[in-house]
């Protein structure tokens, strides 16, 4: 007669982790979608590679033939001249051919047309897509659907990740500070909407940073942000005490309209980085900003242009870091 239903077996494995999608079968970096899950050795390798490109970028001849014959498409669904330009320069200095595509998302609101866009470009034998999109997970979506010979480099997806920005920030910090384990780093401002902050937090944690702080009102912090491995401060005076690195984030004007903040004025009063507040930090503290900065909203001009600011260095290093990532992904992993 019928027995009780036999007990069931293990629950199947979930899909690949975000990190595993980034590597090919030999364990080489195939896509760069997120910092999360990257081994520390790989981040160090990227930063070391970027060092060699950084010195090259200062020379009169700035071009190497590493990616000659490769085609890179900058696929930007969200406007960004600055970021796109650094990717473009990075690819050109590696001798790749570059195509810039600015696609308004209104033309591709349906998934099928997004896939269609991808398929059409793939048919032109592209080697790498540099993708920026307003939706979190867009780079993963592309990576999951591209042909096997194509790589995806995430240039910012929604609130999720902006890995090359975080890498260039680590590069900048490493140039000024030796040992991450002794550092206190504070990230200030709109953490909730910031893909930059998320990627920075992952990178800082992988590099065993001594302490990572986020400073913002509760309305600009994502739920249970502590779970990312940070300490939360609602008060900037307490939060900046003795820190070695301050990273300011850009505040978008829409935040006032959606009721997260009363006004730019009050935000600056409470969270703006002024010289007086900078004095609370460690005397050697550096000030960073992913740009473009809203002067008088999140940062005082005297600080942005002051001696502690490394904001322009970040821009310079951005090219070297992007060259490093592109050459590591495409150099050798794709047969010409």
């Amino acid at each position, binding site marked *: 007669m019928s027995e009780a239903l036999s007990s*069931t077996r293990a629950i199947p494995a*979930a899909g690949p982790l975000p990190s595993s999608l980034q590597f090919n079968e030999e364990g080489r970096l195939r896509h760069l979608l997120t910092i999360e899950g990257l081994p520390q050795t790989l981040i160090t390798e990227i930063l070391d590679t970027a060092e060699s490109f950084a010195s090259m970028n200062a020379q009169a001849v700035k071009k190497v033939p590493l990616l000659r014959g490769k085609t890179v498409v900058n696929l930007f669904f969200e406007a960004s001249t600055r970021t796109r330009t650094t990717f473009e320069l990075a690819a050109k200095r590696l001798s790749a051919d570059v195509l810039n595509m600015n696609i308004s998302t209104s033309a591709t609101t349906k998934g099928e047309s997004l896939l269609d866009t991808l398929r059409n470009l793939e048919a032109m034998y592209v080697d790498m897509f540099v993708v920026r999109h307003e939706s*979190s*997970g*867009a780079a993963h979506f592309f990576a999951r659907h591209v042909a096997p010979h194509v790589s995806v480099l995430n240039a910012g997806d929604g609130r999720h990740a902006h890995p090359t920005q975080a890498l260039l920030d680590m590069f900048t910090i490493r140039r000024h500070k030796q040992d991450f384990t002794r550092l206190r780093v504070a990230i200030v401002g709109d953490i909730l909407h910031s893909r930059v902050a998320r990627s920075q937090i992952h990178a800082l944690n992988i590099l065993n940073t001594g302490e990572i702080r986020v400073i913002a009102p509760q309305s600009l912090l994502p739920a249970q942000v502590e779970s990312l491995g940070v300490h939360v401060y609602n008060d900037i005076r307490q939060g900046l005490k003795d820190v070695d690195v301050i990273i300011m984030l850009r505040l978008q004007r829409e935040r006032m309209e959606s009721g997260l903040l009363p006004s730019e004025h009050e935000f600056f009063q409470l969270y703006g980085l002024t010289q007086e507040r900078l004095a609370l930090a460690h005397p050697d503290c550096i000030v960073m900003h992913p740009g473009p900065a809203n002067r008088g909203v999140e940062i005082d001009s005297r600080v942005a242009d002051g001696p502690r600011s490394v904001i322009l260095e970040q821009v310079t290093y951005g090219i070297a870091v992007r060259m490093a990532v592109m050459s590591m992904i495409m150099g050798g992993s794709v047969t010409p």
Partner: protein
Amino acid sequence: MRLLIENAHLLDPAQGIDRVTDIYIQKENVVALGEAPRDFEPQRRIDAAGRLVIPGVVDMAARLREPGQEHKATVASETRAAASSGITTLVCPPDTNPPVDSPAEVELITRRAKQACGVRVHALGALSAGLAGEQLSEMAALKRAGVLGVSQALKPMASHLLLRRAMEYAASHGLTVFLHPIDWSLNAKGCVHEGPVGTRLGLPGIPAAAETAALGTILALTEQTGARVHLCRLSTARGAQMLARARHDGLPISADVAAHQLFLTDMDVADFNSLCHVMPPLRSQRDREGLRQAVADGAISVICSDHQPHEADAKLAPFAQTLPGISSLETLLPLTLRLAEEGVLSRAEAVRRITANPAAILGLPVGTLAPGHRADLCIIDTEAIYRPEAESWLSQGRNSPFFGWEFAGRVTHTLVAGRVVFEQTGR
């Protein structure tokens, strides 16, 4: 037609039966259990030795997509999928296109169902005209057309005042009101549970308070209006506690949960898996345990499929742009049986939550195989181990995160009113 199901292990929670017996069916009804009625000469015998027989499954929420979204699914395709999975009665929410807010849509669905495989199909009517949430629907006309209740589906009501009026009006016509406890302003543009996973993925979150705030309103209005209310698709542990407290205090309110909420959590979204994009969202492990507890205690008395078949493109986009929902008719029974296997509740209680309990809330004379009742039942080969796959799936919607899971217990026959509407062939 006289049919004898021999040597069946009958599990009928409504009658408290859990033993091997013979089931005698004449025309549409069960006429006897165990002892043959006098002069009963069966025209067909089904040997169910070693198999389990339960009353046909009553699924309280299944989108069949007709009218208006036949590219996703049809009444014909989905009732076939239902029959293969032991479901004999289906209830469609009113959010079709156009919505079920007049007798015409009810009649269309009923007509399509008559042309299909024989699974019973019922509809809920819209609580507001066009589900727009601004004006009451013609509930009396809907009731005459045969709806089992009224629902606002996944659409907001313009105000609490209008919700109150709608509940009062439904109560005056003896219609049960099926409400999703979702505060749409707190829900905002969220697409995942607000918590560590959503934070990590950078996806806009839906706080648990979107459910509990709406639940607070509904409980207050239920008490105020005396309407008969059924809560649809609870998703939080806190919500389940509020429900249990209200029932304990004597409020006549019932609730259901989608089967997937008892197995998946927000962790399953972790790789931007759009197949796990549902509304309300998959929540935390703690919420899942709280829901399981409420199902075991009986505070949540119904498990439903919340079936939402989609075309492939609906899930092919960055996560937030995909459409929520799982094609889940074919996993309702296996997941419910698995709850019993995992020791959450007894097999009899698990079966009660997909048979007698939903039948009672819907006011349908099904969900039991007591003599004199309709012979709606399914026969399950409990030894059969299988993995659902997209290729052998019958629903037109292939959007299931459960492909590849291993289940024990396969439906071999499904009968509606004594007629075999599904019979496993081959294998």
